Structures are given as structure tokens and as C-alpha cells.
């Protein structure tokens, strides 16, 4: 065993020892290495950054959403000071009075559209590359569920500003759910929080929008990324690199080629 320098010993003590301690108990360091230090095909393209772009948009939504939740008040009661609904008043305050509140709300509002667009583009890329095929079927299914959850986030978030646009879009949306056979009327009544959209509706949609659906979404995203890491990134289908392709040279018996060169064999 080679003697370590004093400096090396100090680094071991300060950094590696605690990391080893954590890794021994959680596997976190091995997990991070497994995630970062894996190989991807040499010829993956820019089109294959759309998934991480969607993840970035989701992180923007999560951060701005958390800030908005600190100032937003999900109540349709009338604020005696402004004569307007409390939810609407809190949105006005976030936009007009809170420092950089307009930016946080604007990023959340537009980030939602960007997230949905990126999900569609990402799905289109996966379809084009045929990357949903064996063994990535479950990655595809979790991806579709992420898209559904994303659209539910859009649907539930749209009501929260409690302005005319929000209110009437949601009236239509709830009525659409009401047309479903069997469960429809029950679902519509649950979503409206009663026979009509009113004071019970807003807190319910707020809970769905910031607790239930994001919880499911985060869980799905983790499963999705785990599967991507475990199964590997597929190379483009027109790849000239070997990864995953039939090897023409190896597949053909060497005798055949030799015969062809000599002009005597063939089949």
C-alpha cells in the first residue's frame, strides 16, 4: 500500500469518508455514478434533447408554482376591500405588487404551454425513431401518462385566476366531463364541488393542481428517467454506427466473401 500524501489524507477525511458513509447506507454515490457515467450511442442527435428540455420546463413549473402557492389564495368569496373575489385579488397582487411577481406568474403561465409543446415534440421524436419498440414499451407508456397528467395540470390550473376566461372555460370543461356515460354526471359533480361551480370548486381544483396531479407526475417522471437510464438511449434509426444494427460482415460467412473475391465461389 503506497503511502498517501498529507493532502490526500485530508481530502479523504473531508470528502470521501462522509460520501462513503452515505453510500454504504443508501447507494446514492453508486446510483449517481450509474446515472452519469454511462455510455450513450456516439451519434445521438440534438433531437434527443427534447426529453430533458421538457424536464427543464417541468422544473420551471415546479419552482414558480411553489412561489405562487405562497401568495395565491384559493377562495371565490368576495374580498370586502376590493369587492372582487379573493382569488382574483391575490392574482392581481402577485402580478402588480409582488416584486418580480409578474415574472413568476408569467413564467408559470407560459411554461405550461412550453411544457405541453415539448412533450408533444418529444413524443413525435420517439415515434419517428421507433424508439418505443422492444425493450422500451414501458418507457413509452409512462411517457403517455406524463402527457395526460400534463394536460390535466393545464386543465386544473386554468381555473385558478378565477377570471371570466378561467371560469367559463371550466364550465365548458366540467360539462364535457358530464357527458361521459355512467361516471360522467358523478365526475362533473365532483369537479364542480356541488351542483354548480362555486365556493367549493376552487380549493378542490387547487388541491388537485398542486398536490395530487403533480405528485403523480413527479412519480411518473422518476420511473420514466429510471427506465431511460436502465435501458439506454436508442441511436437514430438511420445510424451509420453499429450500435444495435445487424452486422453485415459478421453475419455473412467469411467463405462467401472470399469466394466472391476469387470469382469462383458465390452461391
Amino acid at each position, binding site marked *: 500500500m503506497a503511502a498517501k500524501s498529507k493532502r490526500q489524507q485530508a481530502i479523504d477525511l473531508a470528502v470521501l469518508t462522509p460520501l462513503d458513509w452515505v453510500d454504504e447506507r443508501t447507494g446514492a454515490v453508486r446510483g449517481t455514478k450509474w446515472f*452519469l457515467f*454511462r*455510455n*450513450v*450511442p*456516439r451519434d*445521438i442527435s440534438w433531437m*434527443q434533447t427534447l426529453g*430533458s*428540455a421538457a424536464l*427543464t420546463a417541468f422544473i*420551471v413549473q415546479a419552482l414558480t408554482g411553489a412561489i405562487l402557492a405562497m401568495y395565491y389564495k384559493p377562495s371565490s368569496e368576495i374580498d370586502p376591500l376590493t369587492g*372582487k373575489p379573493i382569488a*382574483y385579488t391575490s392574482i*392581481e397582487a402577485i*402580478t402588480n405588487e409582488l416584486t418580480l411577481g409578474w*415574472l413568476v406568474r*408569467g413564467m408559470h*403561465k*407560459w411554461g*405550461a*404551454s*412550453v411544457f405541453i409543446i415539448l412533450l408533444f415534440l418529444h413524443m413525435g421524436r420517439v415515434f*419517428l*425513431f*421507433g424508439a418505443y*419498440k*422492444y*425493450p422500451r414499451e414501458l418507457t*413509452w*407508456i409512462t411517457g*403517455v401518462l406524463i402527457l395526460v397528467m400534463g*394536460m390535466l395540470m393545464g*386543465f386544473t390550473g*386554468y381555473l385558478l*385566476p*378565477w*377570471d*371570466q*376566461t378561467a371560469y*367559463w*372555460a371550466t364550465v*365548458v*370543461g366540467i*360539462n*364535457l366531463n*358530464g*357527458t*361521459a*356515460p355512467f361516471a*360522467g354526471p358523478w365526475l362533473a359533480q365532483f369537479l364542480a364541488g356541488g351542483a354548480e361551480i*362555486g365556493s367549493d370548486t376552487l380549493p378542490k381544483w387547487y388541491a388537485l393542481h398542486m398536490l395530487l396531479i403533480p405528485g403523480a407526475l413527479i412519480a411518473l417522471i422518476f420511473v420514466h428517467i429510471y427506465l431511460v437510464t436502465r435501458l439506454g*438511449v*436508442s441511436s437514430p*434509426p*438511420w445510424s451509420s*454506427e*453499429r*450500435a*444495435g444494427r445487424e452486422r453485415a460482415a459478421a453475419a455473412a460467412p467469411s467463405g462467401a466473401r472470399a469466394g466472391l473475391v476469387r470469382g469462383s465461389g458465390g452461391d
Partner: protein
Amino acid sequence: MGRDLGELNREEYARYKEDTKKEGKGFFPFAMWHDTVMSLVVVGVITALAAIWYFDADGTESGILGPWYTEPAEPGTTDFIPRPDWFFYFLFYLLRIFEWPETVFIATVGIPTICLILLIGLPFYDRRRERRPLHRPVAMVAAILTIISMGVLTWKGATAKEALGSELVLLVPTWAEEQGFADDPQAVSGAELFAQSGCMNCHTYLGEGNGNLGAPDLSEVGRTNDAEYFVRYLTNPAAFGNNVMGSYSYLGQENLEALGAFLAASQGSSEDN
């Protein structure tokens, strides 16, 4: 060949694993670098959209990316055009294609459910190993048709003609003449209510209106029932098996009777007969 699909799949995947391990590049830092650049672009675009939206609008005054907010929600108003977020436009427009109430669930539940099942099931019915787009003509044609139809539906939903009560009310004299109820003041005031109470966000009448939710055309509805029936229907549509339309009992009995008279007088345009 005698070898089944599963075996070929596993072989190809094993080759992929081996090749990637031997000849691939590290996810960190190479792929991650591309991801980081792309992520910065995404954050930049979102920030730019937020800034354009904010600085071009002022309160309820709309800029190129819309207003900060519209007026506070007011369940009593009836002349507001309901409109969902853009990624639901395709669904929104589908509703106009199908007739209410018999087939509307095809648009609201049927088609979306089938699309979702097709989407989730994709890897299970498209089981060929071929991945090159040009060698998958069926998949590519299906994808292009899907993109075109989603695009057209979204576009039609976005540009669908909006019916504003204040404009529609100008049509009342024309309606009165065409339907022949000009000398019935109760029917005329019913027609004005009909134009202003948001009925035409969902219903069409003599070629005007939106047809949201696939609600039926009412130009000839007077042929089916009398005024008294329409009043009862408007008071509680659910009692007639209609769970889509809300109750209009808040308009009050006098207004409901005017609407009933107007609907009963709607026997269809004389030109159509």
C-alpha cells in the same frame, strides 16, 4: 427463419448494449452538455414569453400574448364566450362536429378514449423490429394524418367565430321577419334575451352562433313543442335528461315565458320551406 421475434429482439438489444459500451460516448459530459444548452434555451424562451406577455399587456387590456387577466369570474354573466386553453382546442372543436345530445359523448369521451388506447398500446400492436422511418410507411402515414387532423382541429378551434351578445341582438329584426313573429312583442323580447343570454355560445340559429358542445340548431325548434314545454325545459334541462345544459331559471318566469314564445315561434326560415 424459425427464430421468434422475442429472440431476435433480445439479440439486437444485447448487440446494442455491447456496442454502446465499447464505442459509445459518456452521457456525462457529452450528452449532458447538449441537454444543458437545450435547457437554457427553454428557460430563455419561457422568460421571453413572460416578458412579452407582461410588457405588452396592461391589466385586462390585451397585448399580443393576451391580457394579464380578464374581468373577475361572474357566474351571472351570459355573454362571455367560453374558451379553453389552446391545447384543448382540438377537443373543443370536435364538439361542434358531433350532434348533441345523442352523439356528443363520441366527441367528449369516445374519440379521446380511443386515441389514448391507441397511443398507449402502440408498442404492442406495432411489433416489427424495423425502426427506419422510410421502411415504416403505415406508421409514417398514420403519424402525418394525426398531425394534420390535430393541427386542423386546433386551428379551427382557435379561429371559430365568436358570437357576442351585443352584436347578435342586432339580428333580432331579421329573425323576426324571417320567422314571422315581428308583431309578437313577447317573442321579440324573447329573441333579444336569446341573443344576449349566451344561448348562442352553444346553439346555432339561422346560421349564426357557435355550436359549442354540439348543441342543436334551434331555427326550427318551434315545430317540435309549444311555449309551455320550452319554459319547463329551460327551468330544469336535467329533468329532460339533458345534463350538459345548465338551468336558466335565474332569468325569472317572465323572461322564460318570453323565451318560450320566441322558441315556439321559431318555425324555420320561410326561405328554407
